[in-house]
């Protein structure tokens, strides 16, 4: 049994009485420790796919298991815990909490897990240091640059050592050098911590540098 198993996942949107089938019968296996890139045209449904895998959006039909456990059957509390303990999500735009400093944002998942407060802040600070952001720890998101925000978001996704990292174009609006830095970071995390990751990207060269490559097209996922 694979680490993550998706079977027959359907997802459609409804707009003005019309149905847009974004995912049609997607099935996919991801093994533990894999680093997977996902490419596809804009509007192909990559974000939708990640949201479904990250249990942020409910599909119309389908089945997903994580380490053999059926994910879509979980109730609200179990899902929340699953998101907190298992998934690390980096959104297409950073989505940091605006009222909280970078440090507090990074510590938030640990606080939600009700870990010891002091310990949570210590871990968060250490991680920010590793990302080279120690001097921005007390900035609020509005006072950070795009690249810094994206790195803080990555730190937030990684702070609880998730088993599965889902990154939605983490380098989307960054300059190539900074983008490469972030991809470097992802590869490091994958290698050193053994975090399984699915990374959506538009950058073909970056995508090619990943061990496993997928393409989303016409509602289906193909190896690319």
């Amino acid at each position, binding site marked *: 049994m694979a680490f993550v198993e998706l079977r*027959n996942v*359907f997802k*459609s949107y409804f707009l003005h009485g019309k*149905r847009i*089938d974004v995912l*049609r*019968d997607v099935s996919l296996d991801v093994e533990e420790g894999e680093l997977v890139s996902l490419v596809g045209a804009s509007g192909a449904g990559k974000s939708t796919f990640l*949201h479904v895998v*990250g249990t*942020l*959006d*409910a*599909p*119309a*039909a*389908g*089945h997903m298991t994580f380490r053999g456990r*059926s994910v*879509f*059957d*979980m*109730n*609200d*509390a*179990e*899902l*929340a*815990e*699953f*998101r*907190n*303990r298992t998934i690390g*999500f980096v*959104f297409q*735009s950073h*989505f*940091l*909490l*605006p*009222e*909280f400093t970078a440090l507090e944002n990074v510590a*938030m*998942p640990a*606080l*939600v*897990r*009700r870990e010891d*407060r002091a310990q949570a802040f210590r871990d968060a600070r250490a991680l920010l240091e590793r990302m080279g952001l120690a001097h921005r720890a007390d900035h609020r998101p509005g006072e950070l640059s795009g690249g810094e925000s994206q790195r803080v978001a990555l730190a*937030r996704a990684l702070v609880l050592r998730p088993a599965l990292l889902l990154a939605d174009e983490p380098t989307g609006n960054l300059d190539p050098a900074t983008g490469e830095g972030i991809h470097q970071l992802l590869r490091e995390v994958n290698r050193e911590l053994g975090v399984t990751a699915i990374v959506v990207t538009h950058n073909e060269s970056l995508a090619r540098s990943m061990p496993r490559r997928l393409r989303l097209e016409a509602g289906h996922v193909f190896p690319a």
Partner: protein
Amino acid sequence: MRSAERQTDYRLGPLWVGGTLAGVGALLLGWALTVLGAWGPASVGLALSAFGFGPLLQALQGLGLLPLVRAMGETTAASPGALLWAGAGLWLLGWGVVAAGIRHRPREEAPSPAQGAPLHGRLQAERDFSWATLLTYGGGILAAELTVVLLQTALSAGVRLTEAAERSGPFSLPPAGAFLVALLAGMGVAFLAGALGAARARRLAAPEATLGILYLGLPLPIFFTLLHAIPSLSITFGPRLREVTYVAGLLGRPELGYWLVFTGLVLTLVLGITVGFVLAGSGRVDARMGYELFVARRHLEVFRPRFLLKLLGVLLLGILPPIVLFAVVRAAQAAVERTRIRMLGLQDPLKAAEALHRLKAKEQSPTQTMTTLSVGGVGVGVMALIIVMSVMSGFEGDLQDKILGINAHAVVYSYEGEIEPYEGVLGDIRKVPGVAAATPFIMNEVMVASEGNVSGAIIKGVDPATVTTVTSLDRDIVPRDAIQHLAHPEEILHRGDALGGAVAGPEAAGEGHGLPESLQDDPIIELPRGEAPGAAAPLPGILLGSELAHSLKVVVGDRVSVVSPLAGGLGPQGPIPRSAAFRVAGVFHTGMYEYDSKFVYILLQEAQRFFNVKGALGVELKVDDVDDARRISRRVLTALEGYPYRVKDWGEMNQNLFAALRLEKLVMAIILSIISIVAAGLIVATVTMLVLEKRKEISVLKALGVPDGGILKIFLAEGLQIGVAGGALGLGAGLAWCWFIAKVGIKLDPEVYYIPSLPVRIEWGQTALAVVIAVLVSFFASIYPALKASRVEPVEGLKAE
């Protein structure tokens, strides 16, 4: 309900037939009700049917009308009853036919690509409606109502006015006390039912709650309301439910009482439901408030000292003036600041930009303004409630003090008129535990005449040795030891001395000195100075109230005569009046016009002689605990072995007065609660705005692993913060105002009020209640928006950008 998935077919035939039948039924019902003149009681049932939706529920409503129909039918001739039956039947039948005429069928469409794939697990697990939850909620509210009714009946000992029927069991409480116990127990039941139902169902189950309250909760209050409208009902059930109707009637109209209690129970049920859902709705109990408070505090920074101090200032300085002042200062400041920045910009644009940035940062967002408004609103409500309740308590307390000061706490009478000899009775009474003092008295109505005037009065013969142990007649009397002078008339000051003595006394008594010249020639006061006043037999002393002394135009040392039209006994030409002369020994002032203008006191022995009585006409008592006077009076009666004695306590003697005061206080509280309702509306708006503003953050938090319960707790905490901050502000401001009123005083028009300044008495119980209610109101107000927040799907907020 979802029209997209199904189509609705209306078959016109059955619809027409059913509609006509129901219409005819309604006409018949209406006609019958008119004939019976029963629109009043029936309107409750009809109003209820407005809540019903769908033919089935309409049918249930029709069934619900039937008992009413029966009750009405019994009272009059058979024909309108039959009409009612026919009308109700047709009404039911018509709706049934209408229901049969409506058909739903699924919409026809091409199959989707997902046809046949397994349904998403969470959708599969979703439960739509649970009868068990409906029964828990509905049964809970019904059980709570029954608890209140039964406990009140079982515990209260208040209505049985005949002593013989008084319950002697250990669980007999005064009606208000019993009501408190019963209400608390009922609220406990409602809370538990709500919490259990929500915890079991793992959701709030609003449809179940609504239906449960409507169909199981409403009947009892409706029944009680009807109890007063339908004679046959009140004859059957009235006596058994006497305790309940009595307590409800304390508010004036019993219906008000029923519905207030019902509302309270429903609110507690809702509270229980939310608490149960928050704690265990997601499968496990989690009452921890870690990150929830962290987030809530950051969203709404209401506990900043400067913010609170500013609001407190606004409340303390009378709300409007400081706001106007603040607005003026702010506007002036902004104008000055912008001018300064422009000047600065001419020299150093960068510095100007920085200053502008700081100015922008100071501006409030709409949510902050709303937060300020709602904290202020709650604060104003609590403050007003505390001030008004304290002033009303002050009035009540003042009145009680005065009534209790001049009256005894309880009076023992004899059905035989005289208590003779009274010494034994006095001894028996003083031995009763709880009785602090007792004094005999004789009371009668007389005329008091002075040189220039005459006035009706109530004369009281008292025992100077003990009278001050029971009443505080000596609290404000001129001269100080006037009461002792009753027993020693030779010591009564004569006019010349009295002047000197009274000048130092309070103004009220002193007013008597502004005498017209002519009166100074009073022959009595022209007695030569120095002559021993009691050389002959001195005149017995009398004490007058200040108002009476004023209207009789007499002062201490003057002579008055007391005339009783009946005291002389029956002569050949009817009753013979008797009169006797007294010398004013003192003037007292109680502050109650009725007493100061009506009461006069003489020595008990003088009264015995004057009215030809051997003993006393009654014994006045003082008890240790004023509020326990009723129980102690009963004990006194037992000690005296009942007949011919009877005991009245102060509450009984002034029942109407205090009932009116209580009602007035309740009405004020209800009116002021409207402020709280406005504040609650503000809180709903504020928290809703917050939820809208924070949709994205809610989604992100959910993505980080915050469960629905956590989001709910965050926004409930935000509402609670508003309530706590507002309550604390209101408490501070209210107490400060009360302190100000008590210390500095607000003068009252002496022509209207008999108190020189506004009295305040802070009752800690009701003050705490005002704050607790404010906090609860904020909590309730934030439930709905918080629920909305918890339902935000994670992906909704993420897509919003």
